[in-house]
């Protein structure tokens, strides 16, 4: 399945929140929707879920207009919310039933998910009596209760301790492996980098960048080479003394010497120049930009 948002436009009053936003997500691949606060992530998600219609553009599933009553979407809202004063199992069943599941199916799903997330013992407790981490897990159960084909996770990792974060990672991997369309929204880049094959960076209501994460990384200038070794000072001195024309800059920090080249093609010349020092070298690699750097690069400048 392929979920596609095409040229979404949305204004609230005078404010144009989305100005032609497009992105696409596929089964078995996770799409990371990135953006600073107020970039339009939540608005895009709400349009996908048909909480409100866009002013322009459309949301397609396999080329046809998405109907939320035919496809089940699981949503983990950024602002976590369930009924604090109601027993957990009761409200899980309620949300399952609202999504159109039979009573039996809902109960089965709820029991399976509670077990998977190791919170079965709280099923008859009121939500507010649980710790924050456990409330988060219950929230995830509510998201997945209807066995949705599309899963939208808005900041799923915020507020989780490392053990619970690991559990959630495993669940997300299962979802992706199970052929679900997974939409991630976050500004915690490390998680996006870990899970998402595709990304779309939203900036001030527009897509600043989108595509496969690997291609995006490759598209960045590959003219910085990181050198690791036991005697980097010797390497630095040797390079400085020969002073080749392709050497733009050198920066020695901790265990890494970063060499900036005039052109990525000059790396062959660099390797040759390193030959005399080969005995002290551990690793030489072209530096890839981190998602964080990419994100900052594309979303710098004023934002709300």
């Amino acid at each position: 399945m392929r979920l596609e948002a095409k040229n979404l436009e949305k204004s609230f009053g005078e404010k144009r929140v989305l100005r032609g936003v497009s992105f696409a997500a596929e089964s078995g691949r996770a799409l990371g929707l990135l953006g600073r606060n107020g970039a339009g992530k939540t608005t895009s998600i709400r349009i996908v879920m048909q909480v409100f219609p866009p002013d322009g553009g459309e949301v397609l599933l396999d080329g046809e207009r998405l109907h939320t009553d035919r496809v089940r979407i699981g949503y983990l809202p950024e602002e976590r919310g369930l009924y604090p004063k109601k027993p957990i199992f009761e409200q899980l069943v309620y949300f399952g039933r609202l999504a159109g599941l039979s009573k039996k199916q809902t109960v089965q799903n709820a029991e399976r998910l509670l077990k998977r997330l190791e919170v079965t013992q709280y099923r008859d407790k009121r939500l507010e009596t649980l710790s924050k981490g456990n409330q988060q897990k219950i929230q995830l159960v509510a998201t997945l209760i209807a066995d949705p084909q599309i899963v939208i996770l808005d900041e799923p990792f915020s507020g989780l301790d490392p053990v619970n974060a690991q559990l959630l990672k495993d669940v997300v991997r299962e979802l992706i492996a199970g052929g679900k369309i997974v939409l991630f929204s976050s500004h915690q880049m490390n998680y996006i980098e870990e899970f998402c094959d595709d990304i779309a960076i939203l900036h001030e209501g527009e897509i600043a960048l989108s595509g496969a994460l690997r291609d995006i990384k490759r598209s960045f200038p590959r003219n910085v080479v990181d050198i690791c070794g036991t005697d980097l000072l010797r390497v630095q001195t040797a390079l400085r003394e020969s002073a080749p024309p392709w050497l733009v800059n050198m920066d020695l920090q901790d265990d890494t010497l970063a060499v900036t080249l005039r052109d990525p093609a000059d790396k062959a010349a660099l390797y040759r120049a390193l030959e005399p020092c080969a005995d002290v070298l551990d690793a030489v690699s072209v530096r890839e930009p981190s998602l964080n750097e990419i994100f900052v690069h594309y979303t710098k400048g004023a934002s709300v």
Partner: protein
Amino acid sequence: MKQFRHIFAFEYLSYAKNKAFVATTVILILVMAVVLCFPRFSNGDFLSGLVGGEGRTVAVAGASEAESQEVAAYLQTVLPDDRVVVDTADEAALHERVLSGEYDAVIRLISPTQYQYITETAAMTDMTSMTVSEALSARLRSMQLRAYGLSETQVTNALNAAVTAVPVTLGNDQSQTFFYTYILMFLLYMAVMMYGQLVAQSVAVEKSSRAMELLITSAKPTSLMFGKVLGAGAAGFTQLILLLGSAFLLYRVNADFWTDNATMASIFDMPLSILLYTILFFVLGFLLYAFLYGALASLASRLEDINTLVMPVTFLMLIAFLVSIFSMLGDVDSVLMRVASFVPFTSPMAMFTRICMGSVAPWEVVLSVALLVGSTIGIGYLAAAIYRVGVLMYGKPPKLMALVRAVQSDRAARRR
């Protein structure tokens, strides 16, 4: 429709399972049981005990001992529950004795046509001075008539001559309808207000706990709004039926003990049609107001905001209630009431009052109910439209114009 059913059931059950809601119902039924069973266990005169204080001491102070004695003996016959004594001390001493509590009241004769009625506090329900005035007037008249030379029999006949009216009522007898109308009106007002507030509360709780984030993505706002309002309405209706049902049952069981009480009889012998009208106007009035409550509460981000937001609606209902209640004491078919019985927001109460106590043509009732039904449905959809926009607005509740614009642009986008 399926979603509506789940929401309705969820809302209804959350009231039915709510301890406070159940406890209120049980307590109200118990209170009614105690009141309605009371005459069975008291010896029937508890009402008189409630109305007048028994065993009061009233002193009579005349110019002479003899006159005081005579008046006191005479007054004792008209004040059988009180103890009438004679005390001819001076005014200051009498004041002293009233203040000290020795006497509850003093009747100080000044002239044949005047007396002072001295009490510490003038109670509103104290009828003694009226009884005394009447008795002393009769005594004065009979003395004067005798002075003109009439015989004892002639005097008695003259004083006892009286004219009585035979009532022929073509419409409603307001003395019969007043009490149950009053009680039902009050019930209507309380019920609509209470259950309306419950709807507001439940909307605001979902919004402030952000359960709304999930709800709004799993159900249509219209289903949510209608499910919520009808769920609360059904819960309220169940409570009312339980209350009214047990009241009737308890009255029937104890009917033999209530025979002398005209007020009670007039309440419980209300015609069936009135009961059905009560249900009709409760249902319509509740729906109309509950939709407004729900819509306004959807604008609140915090529970504290609801009270300010729903204030206009509460006032509207209070006005409807007061107009109807005050007209009950005067003319229930006044121009104001005629108008009010067609305006949807006031008609549940005004038209109901007029049906109970005034004279209304059938077409008026039909028109009023039709207008009410129409506007209830209209308000229902308007409420859902506001709710749809309102639940996603966080922060300060929007100004009216901003809200109107938001609803309009939402509808425009939806039509696309």
